[in-house]
């Protein structure tokens, strides 16, 4: 099953409540995915932000000491077992530095994105990360009912395989092993055996090759075999794509203040003035995007 949610704020007055709005959406989708949960929050910054997950050993150590003199103008924000490292050091250097630290896993990076994911019931996960305190312009979330790969943080969504990019997925892909092999040959790195990570890598690889998000997702209809409703996040917004059979649900609510998407309307029932929003289903095989 799995539940996916996303919200893009058109009206800045709601930005202070982004975390609160997403918390309600995640909680209402807990029944669709009780195994693990994760979310990506987009809040623009002048510095780079590296979201990292620490193993138990590393959580007891002083991370700022370990990173001293390696990253410039560094600031750390610890949230449960995750840390967001803010620095002016560019990804080409910073990623290498972070990869050298054993027990540290980079879950996402960019000038806007922060990613948090953990195993456990989504209602507990959002509490652990204090999601209701986050602010920002748009956000994406996932509640997972595991199918083809293990219930681990690595197996949790969102998957981020490029700067300020992430992907959540409800469904399953059948050609991910072949596609993974061909992407690895092109230099794309994967951390898990999860099918969604392959789709995320496919999208990042295409964007890196200067294809537009719309063209990338349209090509995905041909190259990604399986069932899916995707929400893919970028620095400025997000896009939605359903496969051409469209058996995985999705509903969109849009008004002048925001656009929200979820697996079920239940996830959006608490959003302000949702009953007066334009509510519709994204059509199969059609790319919908906002802010991109």
């Amino acid at each position: 099953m799995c539940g996916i949610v996303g919200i893009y704020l058109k009206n800045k007055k709601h930005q202070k409540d982004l975390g609160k709005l997403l918390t309600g959406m995640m909680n209402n989708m807990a029944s669709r995915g009780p195994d693990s949960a994760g979310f990506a929050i987009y809040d623009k910054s002048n510095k780079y932000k590296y979201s990292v997950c620490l193993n138990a050993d590393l959580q007891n150590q002083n991370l700022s000491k370990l990173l001293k003199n390696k990253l410039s103008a560094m600031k750390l924000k610890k949230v449960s077992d995750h840390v967001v490292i803010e620095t002016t050091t560019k990804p080409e250097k910073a990623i290498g530095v972070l990869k050298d630290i054993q027990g540290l896993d980079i879950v996402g990076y960019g000038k806007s994105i922060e990613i948090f994911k953990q195993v456990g019931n989504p209602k507990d996960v959002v509490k652990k990360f204090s999601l209701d305190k986050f602010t920002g312009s748009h956000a994406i979330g996932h509640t997972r009912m595991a199918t083809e790969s293990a219930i681990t943080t690595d197996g949790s969504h969102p998957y981020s395989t490029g700067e300020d990019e992430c992907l959540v997925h409800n469904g399953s892909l059948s050609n991910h092993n072949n596609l993974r092999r061909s992407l690895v040959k092109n230099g794309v790195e994967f951390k898990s055996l999860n099918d969604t990570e392959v789709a995320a890598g496919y999208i990042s690889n295409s964007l890196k090759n200067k294809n537009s998000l719309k063209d990338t997702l349209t090509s995905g209809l041909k190259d990604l075999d399986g069932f899916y409703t995707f929400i893919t996040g970028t620095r400025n917004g997000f896009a939605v794509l359903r496969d051409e059979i469209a058996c995985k649900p999705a509903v969109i609510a849009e008004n002048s203040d925001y656009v929200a998407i979820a697996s079920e309307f239940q996830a959006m029932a608490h959003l302000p003035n949702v009953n007066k929003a334009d509510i519709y289903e994204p059509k199969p095989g059609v790319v919908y995007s906002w802010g991109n």
Partner: protein
Amino acid sequence: MDFDLSKKKLTDVNAFLQNIDLKSNQRDFIVKNPSGSHALCAGLQQEINVSIKGHVGYYCAGMNKNASITIDGNVGTGVAENMMSGIVHVKGNASQSAGATGHGGTLIIDGDASSRCGISMKGIDIIVKGSVGHMSAFMAQSGNLVILGDADEFLGDSIYEAKIFCLGRVKSLGADCVEKSMKKSDINSLQKILDAHDIKADASKFKRYGSERKLYNFKIDNVGSY
């Protein structure tokens, strides 16, 4: 009688509506704040009127028998699935598989219905005032699917003996589904359906689609069963 789902449990409301005391004169009910609840008003059996104020989730009014249910909002997957009789009226849009496997009664959707509307319908009449998504009336066995708007790809794929009437554009027909001649008897029966629900449309302007009967072993001797 009013029920507020923000204060009352869904299962309690459903249980009440499924077990109406016919000695009481109460026949009209309002359900407020459905907030996307699933299986709301499923399995109602008595001639009662229920008005739902807001958007609902999956399988609303499923297996309905006799009740008249109006939804003042949008509905999720499988509204009125396996309905036996009665009327279900959706004032907004419907998600996929609206009226799936319905045996009887009428489902009216004022907005659009998405994919697989009327999948495997078995005698229900479905009237969609907007458009329908792809693979609508897939394996439809009996009943009428009336579309006042357009239909997406593969309309009527693998259809048996249901009749499809469409006023708008059909993107493509599915396997074994063909356009059929609109006979006088078809125009009359369609006009009867439209008039019965106060829908202002001229039946003679519709096109009819049905089975070419090449995909399944149609036996003319059994035609009365459909």
